[in-house]
């Protein structure tokens, strides 16, 4: 299945994209997507503990199963205001 991935701020810089498509196995989770996206980028891997995920605009745990066409987002610690 294919999902759309958005990366922001420090993660956007480290991963080298703000937006891309990602092919995943059926029933893949957010954690699976994270592993795929950060493979070979140790600086990004180290940010896992401070990163939140959103699936279709809703904060979601890493174990959340994904579906075809989902939009997932990788959210570093926020700094608005």
């Amino acid at each position, binding site marked *: 299945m294919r999902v759309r991935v958005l990366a922001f701020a420090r993660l956007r810089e480290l991963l080298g994209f703000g937006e891309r498509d990602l092919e995943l196995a059926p029933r893949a989770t957010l954690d699976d997507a994270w592993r795929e996206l950060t493979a070979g980028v140790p600086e990004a891997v180290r940010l896992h503990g401070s990163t939140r995920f959103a699936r279709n*605009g809703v904060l979601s745990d890493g174990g959340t199963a994904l579906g075809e066409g989902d939009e997932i987002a990788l959210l570093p610690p926020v700094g*608005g*205001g």
Partner: protein
Amino acid sequence: MIAVSPDPIDLGALVAAVGDPAHGAICTFLGTTRLTSPGDERPVAALDYEAYTTMALADFHAIADEARARFGPLAIAIVHRTGRVELGEASVGVAVGAPHRVAAFDACEFAIDTLKARAPIWKREQYADGATAWIANTPGGTA
């Protein structure tokens, strides 16, 4: 008025957006960009804000709903800028209209505190020497 946009913040428009003859109070907050961050002496030359716009807009609406659930009937406007914001300019604005001032003050503080804690918006400081850093808000902090 709920918005995430590169446009400068118009305080008059925020106030107008929450005007209501049934209300007796309007409280506003502007967050402005500052020359230095806490614990960092380097002068900031410029700031850039980045947002997950669709989620931030939904979150602003949710913050307004939560404020109404806590503080009663309110009119709330929340706007945040994206892109470059010059020093001293407002990066975020909140206006709350309420029947009485206590609810207006309380809801305004609740809205900006909640936004800073969770809205999907990021800030990058650029320093005079060309270095940059993403600055995260501290939980319960004043930064």
